């Protein structure tokens, strides 16, 4: 009971700290100076129709790079915790599997559907991150769609072994290419991760906004392979 009282007091303290801050924020005060600059100049400077993409990829590109690093670290942690030592016992279990005992065959319909839908889902993911600078969407969302395509495949056949070398390779190459594009920006344009070393193109077209689509494609592939790795490590084949 004492403990609950302390927790309630802590929550009240949080509320006391929060409400004066919340009262100062209202929709009427408009954009901050920084956001005003982004909205006014963002489209001319970078040529991307989606301002969120401009902020994620270019203005706050370094943040995103760090974020991708955090994601990589977390994936490595999950894989190290769950996969290490698992493969051996896993294999043995599979060999000694008596067929039809306890474990069901996967649904044939689901296997067919997954095989048919998988390329379409991959294409949909690519569509989302390729249009990240024009419409809502981008590397993170597209990466998640890629991961869920693989998830569908894993659901349809739980004995499926993904090609980890390929997954790791795609992730490493896209990460390295991300940094390389950033360095290209430092060398050819204004600074690290400046996408303006490629021509801006016509506003609102697919090939526009300099290197923003390239960076977003790389982020998409990286996020997709990392989330696939997480899901693959977490799953359990019963």
């Amino acid at each position, binding site marked *: 009971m004492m403990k609950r009282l302390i*927790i309630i007091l802590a929550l009240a303290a949080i509320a006391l700290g929060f409400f004066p801050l919340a009262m100062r924020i209202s929709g009427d005060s408009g*954009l901050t100076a920084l956001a005003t600059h982004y909205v006014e100049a963002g489209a001319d400077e970078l040529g991307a129709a989606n301002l969120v993409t401009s902020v994620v990829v270019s203005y706050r590109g370094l943040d995103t790079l760090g974020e991708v690093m955090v994601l990589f670290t977390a994936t490595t942690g999950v894989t190290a915790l769950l996969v290490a030592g698992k493969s051996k016992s896993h294999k043995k279990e599979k060999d000694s599997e008596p067929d039809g005992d306890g474990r069901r065959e996967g649904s044939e319909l689901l296997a067919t559907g997954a095989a048919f839908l998988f390329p379409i889902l991959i294409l949909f993911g690519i569509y989302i991150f390729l249009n990240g600078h024009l419409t809502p969407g981008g590397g993170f969302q597209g990466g998640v769609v890629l991961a869920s395509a693989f998830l569908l495949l894993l659901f349809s056949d739980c004995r499926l072994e993904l090609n980890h070398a390929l997954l790791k390779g795609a992730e490493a190459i896209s990460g390295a290419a991300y940094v390389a594009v950033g360095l290209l920006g430092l060398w050819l344009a204004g600074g690290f991760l400046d996408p303006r070393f490629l021509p801006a193109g016509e506003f609102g077209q697919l090939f526009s906004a300099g290197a923003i689509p390239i960076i977003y494609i790389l982020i998409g592939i990286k996020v997709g392979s990392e989330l696939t790795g997480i899901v693959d490590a977490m799953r359990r084949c019963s």
Partner: protein
Amino acid sequence: MTHIVLAIGFLLVCIGFWGLMTRREVFRMIISFSLLDTGVHVIMVGIGYVRAGTAPIFDEALAVAGAVGKVVDPVPSALVLTAIVIGLAVTALMLSFAIRLHASRGSLAVDDMKELKW
């Protein structure tokens, strides 16, 4: 409108915090943490909201000139975008710790973990 969103987010944070403090099982604590996460995201997006604002995406309906009064702040959106992905990764990491914990002790109850007690 902003205040409604901030209130929702704050209450979610409170519920998450409450769960994090009172549940005695690691799995429930992780669920509470993800609720807290969602609450913080809602607050952040709410801070970026501008009255009657639309998404900061320029197309036929929204010209670049004179957009300042009509769009919401893109910076919190961008931050939350990355924060959600990080949230998933961190949740997965916590869950894998929980799995290992359960595999080595056979229990997820916090009361069974006496090593760190002081």
